């Protein structure tokens, strides 16, 4: 028990901090201890876990829809609504995805698709599933699609690159499961014929992380996750 190991003064201080009663220098001092003293940090966490029980009686009040709209504007810019009670969110997003897929094709990408049409005529169309992966600041952006006949995934790096001395690695993440590698991002535009078809389906999360050269040594993401998106029907 973390609480019994501390003296009263420290335990009370941890409680005051958890409640938010400390101000000025005392609050700053507590903040330092929190970082450097795991027992103090545990005592604060312990108080929070206990005090939050007092919230059990706090009435739930549905906030007006404008709050979520404002949050979304702040976090994701001017994009249309995504979920949160908006039944049309997914459909709107998918249509937007197709439009971006078509409009966003640069010369190299267009050429790649053109070549692909020749090689595999049945799948020279835009992908049937598409995920847009973008970092929060928009500096890194990828489109990852699954071709209509499921012959390959198509990866396009639209913006950004791996940090110096690192590589980008793609992951597929099914809900509640460990990420599965889709390999290192090979170029700004490439096809991936060999991908886990049983896993990569509509609704799955695709993510990109930065990893040491050659990709994650552990088979799981070891660097920062830079961007993620959901694979949606186009």
């Amino acid at each position: 028990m973390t609480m019994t190991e501390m003296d009263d003064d420290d335990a009370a201080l941890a409680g005051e901090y958890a409640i938010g009663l400390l101000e000025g220098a005392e609050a700053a001092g507590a903040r330092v201890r929190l970082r450097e003293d795991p027992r103090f940090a545990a005592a604060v966490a312990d108080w929070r876990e206990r005090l939050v029980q007092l919230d059990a009686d706090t009435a739930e009040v549905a906030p007006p829809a404008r709050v979520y709209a404002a949050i979304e504007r702040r976090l994701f810019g001017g994009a249309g609504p995504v979920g949160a009670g908006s039944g049309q969110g997914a459909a709107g997003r998918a249509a937007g995805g197709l439009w971006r897929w078509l409009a966003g094709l640069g010369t190299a990408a267009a050429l790649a698709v053109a070549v692909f049409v020749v090689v595999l005529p049945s799948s020279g169309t835009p992908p049937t599933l598409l995920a847009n992966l973008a970092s929060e600041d928009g500096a890194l952006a990828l489109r990852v699609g699954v071709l209509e006949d499921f012959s390959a995934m198509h990866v396009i790096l639209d913006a950004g690159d791996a940090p110096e001395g690192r590589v980008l690695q793609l992951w597929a993440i099914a809900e509640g499961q460990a990420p599965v590698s889709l390999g290192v991002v090979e170029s700004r535009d490439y096809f991936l014929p060999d991908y886990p078809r049983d896993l990569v389906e509509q609704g799955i999360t695709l993510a990109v992380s930065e990893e040491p050269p050659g990709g994650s040594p552990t088979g799981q993401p070891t660097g920062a996750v830079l961007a993620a998106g959901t694979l949606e029907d186009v």
Partner: protein
Amino acid sequence: MTDSSDIEALISRCALRDRAAFAALYDATSAKLFGVCLRILRDRGRSEDALQEAYVKIWANAERYRPGGARPMTWLITIARNAAIDAVRRRREDSAAEGAAESLVDQAATPEGAALDRDEARRVVACMGELPEDRRAAVRGAYLGGQSYADLAEAAGVPINTMRSWLRRALITLRECMAR
């Protein structure tokens, strides 16, 4: 209603920048968090602003949340509570900006596997009942109402130092009771 492990999963997916998970998390938890903000701010407009702040921070800090550490609702309520308390304090002094950030940073210092058994955590409710009425009111005012020592002292008609020693004693008594 969404249970604890579902909420934990949604937070983890937010860490992977999954907007649909964020929307689902908002749907599942915003009414509770709005209630927490309203309780502290007692003003709908300001509570809406605080709720907005809270969810922006939840999205930005989702990767700091450690499954198996703090219970997910505790983590979320702490963020909402701090956003609301910052809004209260900002009115008086302009030094609150730090406050909100700090409450999130300290998650990182939390040892893993620290979550208390729920029944044990609930003991605080019974232990509150053992405090003298004025001390109980002070703890409730501080935690549930987000009141500062100055607010509490004024409400009780005692000097700030007296209020502080009351409240610290009350916390120590609570701790002893909860450890029993």
